[in-house]
């Protein structure tokens, strides 16, 4: 039987993914930047669009002049919410997997026990 004790590391990993993705070093590969930089940039763009215009502009300005560490700090609120969404997705998938698996296990157990008793 699978329990949450087996599955909860998956939730933690899912939740850590946005934090790790934003922290990766940025590299150029075949003329395209990949790594943490584009992730942070895309996150700031999404946030700037979601916020009121004035605050959005201030955020973009701040990001443009920030160091890598400050960029990550500005990225953290987005990462936090993304982590929450990832965690809930992992939780829902985990619930389905555990419930289905345990339903089979329980029925197999009862059938075996019934057969043993008979």
């Amino acid at each position: 039987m699978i329990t949450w004790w087996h599955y909860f590391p998956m939730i933690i990993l899912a939740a850590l993914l946005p934090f790790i993705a934003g922290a990766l070093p940025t590299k150029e590969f075949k003329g395209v930047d990949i790594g943490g930089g584009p992730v942070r940039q895309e996150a700031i763009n999404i946030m700037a669009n979601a916020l009121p215009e004035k605050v959005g502009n201030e955020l973009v300005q701040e990001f443009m002049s920030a160091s890598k560490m400050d960029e990550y700090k500005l990225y953290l609120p987005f990462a936090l919410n993304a982590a929450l969404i990832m965690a809930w997705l992992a939780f829902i998938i985990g619930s389905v997997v555990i419930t289905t698996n345990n339903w089979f296990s329980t029925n197999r157990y009862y059938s075996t026990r019934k057969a043993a008793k008979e």
Partner: protein
Amino acid sequence: MLSIMLFVTAIVFLINTMLFCAYVSITGALGLIPTLVCLYIVRRLNPQDQTTEVEGWEIGEGVDIENPDKPKKVKAILEDRALDLGFLGLGSPGSGKSIMAIGLLKYFTEHRKKGWVYWEGKGDLDIYQKTVACGATPNKFFSSELPSSDSINVFSGDTDSVVERLTQILISDESDYYGNAQRSALRKVVPLIKGLNITASLRDLYVVYTREDAAMYVMNLAKEKEVSPDVIEAARMFFDIDEKDRMEQLKGLLNKMDAFVLGKIADRINAYNPTLDLKSSAGKSDSIYFHLPYSKLAKDLAIMLTEEIGEIAKERQLYDKNRQSWPQVYDDWGAFFYENFGPISARCRSAKMPISFLFQSKGQTDRVDGNRIFTTEITDNIGGMFILRINGTDTAKWAAEQFGEYETAELSRTDNTSYEGNNMSVNETPRVKSDTLKNLNAGEAIISCLISGEDGTIRNQRMKVRFPYPDFSEEKDIDWPVIKNHNNDEQEGLHLWRDFMNADRLNALKQQIIEEDQQIEKNHQKLMDVDYL
């Protein structure tokens, strides 16, 4: 896990709210709403207070042994609703039965503020001392051996109940010719005496059976008091039997009655104005201590009193709308069991007079009828079973069986070159082993008792507990009670025993009647001699 997820969500919402309020607008405070909703759901999913409020005797920490492989610590409470169904306590000498019973009386006295009846079959002074020392002082005290205890009238009650009670005690064999004749004698004479509406005692009945002149006196008195003619006629049919034959029929009955009408105790159990009347005590919810150390007489008395309790229960069942709980605790009662105990215990339980009994061996209940119906009946009529330390193998085995079995499953796996697979075996294992009962400490018990669950459900809980040891520090200063009884000869009553069993007194009475008769004759003669013309 859902609670953890919701809690984390609430924290993230809170951080978002704070950031929004700080950098964007105060309207971000609306984010507190989903935060609080999440926290509310978490609270509902994990209620802090999962206990059910119950009233009962708190006996401390216990261990739930529903599944002995996974024992759980619990707070052991014997709920009032369970105690009001009565219980059976079984334990060897020194296992702590009496201390448990006294603790229960203390609970009834101090917490429930209601009366009780303690039937004590051992008779030790220290039990009385402990009962009083811990605060459970009885209002009434009756002893089969101590002269200075309360008095009772074993002939009290309505006609049918007295006949029933006396039949139980005085007629040993109901199937033979003499048994039927004796039952008939009771049914013909008891209504006659009861019909007089004068307080009578068993001694009066004895005198009516043994003295022709007393019988004649009662018959004449019955006519004078206009007792129902059919009752008088039935009595006449009995008294018309040839005296020799009649006495032959009554021989066994009178022999049995001797124990109740002769001897020192006879005055206290045939009181016209008794200081202890069970019926009124039941109404007032008195606390009564019956001190009945085992003897043949004590057993007969106990049966007679238990039958009276059964009659009170019957009356409460039928007519008492506001009956208060009046528990009966029979301690060390193994030797006192008799056939009718089962039906009485069922009746008492439904009349809120729950019977609880403590005894030492299953053999004591088996002995009653030999075929074990009595034991089954007794165990079926109680709400809880408390098993203390038991030394005897048979009783321990039987007691252990009362706690049933639980299911265990074993899974073994074979994995080798020729075979691979699982094998599961399911076993029913006794929840309690007889050896466990032999190894209990004094006061420790394995109990099976009803408990309330959530949403008003009730289930049977099996626990290992240790009964509390009350404070008996003042017991040494306590002695038997000294109760002053009324002088029976000075009380209002039928007084056949006083008047017909004392030859001098009887002669004096006869002389007085003759003198009165002569006086009437003289007066009549004087009237006749007067020359009215």
